[in-house]
């Protein structure tokens, strides 16, 4: 943003060339979503109606109908959305506790093996979860964790990126606060809870979003670890729906809208916490 005058394109270029270009690009990214939304809120029989000849009504519904949503909500889908919310919610809460404790141990406490333990965290973060999901699913079956909420939640709790981010933030909190609290006889737990966590609101929001997105986007893992339909998460339920012999376009679009809109509603207002913090955690040491 901080570009100086002489390097900035002239006003003419900015308004006549770059702005229309930016609008065009934005439109390309948003059109598939508009089409999805329009197809979900129109009468199901109209979904394929405006394709040939193609008309603008493909993305601008003129007749609205909640039929697709009502049909979808009658089936097992609401339960799957609830499962996703439960799994993501529990992961965020438990993950924040586990990851912030680890970050505290790696930034505020001093001990000899700190470097080694930090390396373990970084290395395990380098092995992406999906790569080892299939052997882990075999292990989870021998540990009897298949078809359970615990089985869905557990792999999401220890998140290397969240630990990394919180550690960076904790390192920026003045050391004097720790020393003063120790002189006052505060316990470590108290220093962690009422000094570090209390001062780390933005970092906790960022880490919470990372944990949430990981679970909400999960597909391979819930596919592997759940065979009982009552425990299907939303994305798996939606994918199974496509696999049915005579699936209904309207309901599929309605389900897609629901699964897409929940993270958007959470991410967009909190965007400033999400993107830059991950970006900086990734970019800086």
């Amino acid at each position, binding site marked *: 943003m901080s570009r100086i005058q002489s390097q900035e394109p002239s006003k003419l270029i900015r308004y006549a060339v770059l702005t229309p270009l930016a609008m065009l690009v934005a439109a390309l990214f948003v059109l598939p979503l508009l089409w999805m939304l329009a197809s979900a809120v129109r009468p199901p029989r109209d979904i394929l109606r405006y394709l040939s000849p193609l008309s603008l009504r493909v993305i601008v519904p003129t007749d609205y109908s909640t039929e697709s949503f009502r049909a979808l909500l009658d089936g097992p889908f609401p339960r799957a959305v609830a499962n996703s919310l439960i799994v993501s919610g529990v992961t965020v809460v438990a993950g924040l506790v586990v990851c912030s404790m680890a970050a505290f141990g790696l930034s505020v*406490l001093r001990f000899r093996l700190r470097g080694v333990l930090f390396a373990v965290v970084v290395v*395990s973060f380098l092995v992406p979860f999906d790569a080892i999901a299939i052997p882990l699913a075999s292990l989870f079956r021998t540990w009897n964790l298949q078809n359970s909420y615990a089985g869905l939640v557990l792999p999401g709790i*220890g998140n290397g990126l969240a630990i990394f981010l919180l550690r960076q933030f904790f390192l920026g909190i003045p050391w004097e606060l720790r020393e003063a609290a120790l002189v006052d006889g505060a316990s470590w737990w108290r220093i962690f809870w009422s000094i570090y966590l209390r001062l780390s609101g933005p970092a906790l929001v960022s880490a919470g979003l990372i944990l949430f997105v990981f679970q909400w986007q999960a597909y391979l893992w819930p596919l592997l670890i759940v065979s009982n339909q009552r425990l299907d998460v939303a*994305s798996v339920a939606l994918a199974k729906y496509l696999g049915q012999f005579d699936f209904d376009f309207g309901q599929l679009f309605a389900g*897609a809208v629901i699964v897409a809109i929940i993270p958007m509603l959470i991410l967009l207002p909190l965007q400033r916490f999400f993107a830059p913090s*991950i970006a900086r955690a990734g970019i800086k040491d």
Partner: protein
Amino acid sequence: MRVGRRAPLGNEAAVAVLFLAPALIALVLFRIVPTGYAVVESVRLKGEFVGLDNYRFLLDSDSFRRSLTTTLVFGAVLNPAQIGLALALAVLLIQRLPGARLWRTLVFLPVAVPLLVSALVWGIAFRPDDGIFNAVLAVVGVAKQPFLTSPDQALPSIMLLASWAGVGYWMIFLIAGLQDIPPEYAEAAAVDGAGWWRTFRQITLPLLRRPLAFVLVADTVANFLLFAPVQVLTRGGPREATNLLMFEVYRQAYTFGDLALASAEVVVVVVVMVAVVFVQFRLLRSDG
């Protein structure tokens, strides 16, 4: 002054273990143990140690070799394309334009959508007979395309949908990187009479190396492990054209039920991925 500090150090190690224990247990159990388990299973067959037999079998198998090649080609084409696009978008949307924030948010929007949902929506759009893409092509007079149903077009179609879903994410990192560059550099270049392109190539790009390195590595890993669109749209076909490695492993373990071969494949996936990432880091570090 420092006397007070020495006393709690031993104590601190014990406290640190308690604070770190839950996360370390989780990381070891859910990341490191399964990797080790895959290695152990990959050198066994029906409970007996068979050395590298499973790996030899894989390297002789056409279907696995094809899957490995497909995945490497997929990455070799897609990674540079996505990063180039993300960089172009970052440079465009960092300009002071009317509505810049809105355009940026709209490009970012697909990132919030789970990849599986994007795959389903694009899958319907790609349908040859009643899909919206062929309807759009008809308007400009292009004949119907088979998209996901053709061995030639299926992989490029998946590349297109993966880019739509992912480019906004990488753009955010590059925007953050561009914003971190002190304006004095561009100022100095301007004083020297350098044009925009020269300033970009000789000043901006080198200063953007760290975020670019991060994006390159993370994007490579993401594309290497791409699974949902293949599983839900093409199931590796037509004629194995989209049989990317993650789907190959899944198929080996769950369709063919061969856990030994699937484990060997997991090990190959991890090794190739780590090797590619390592080489990328080295390249980005040494040049310049």
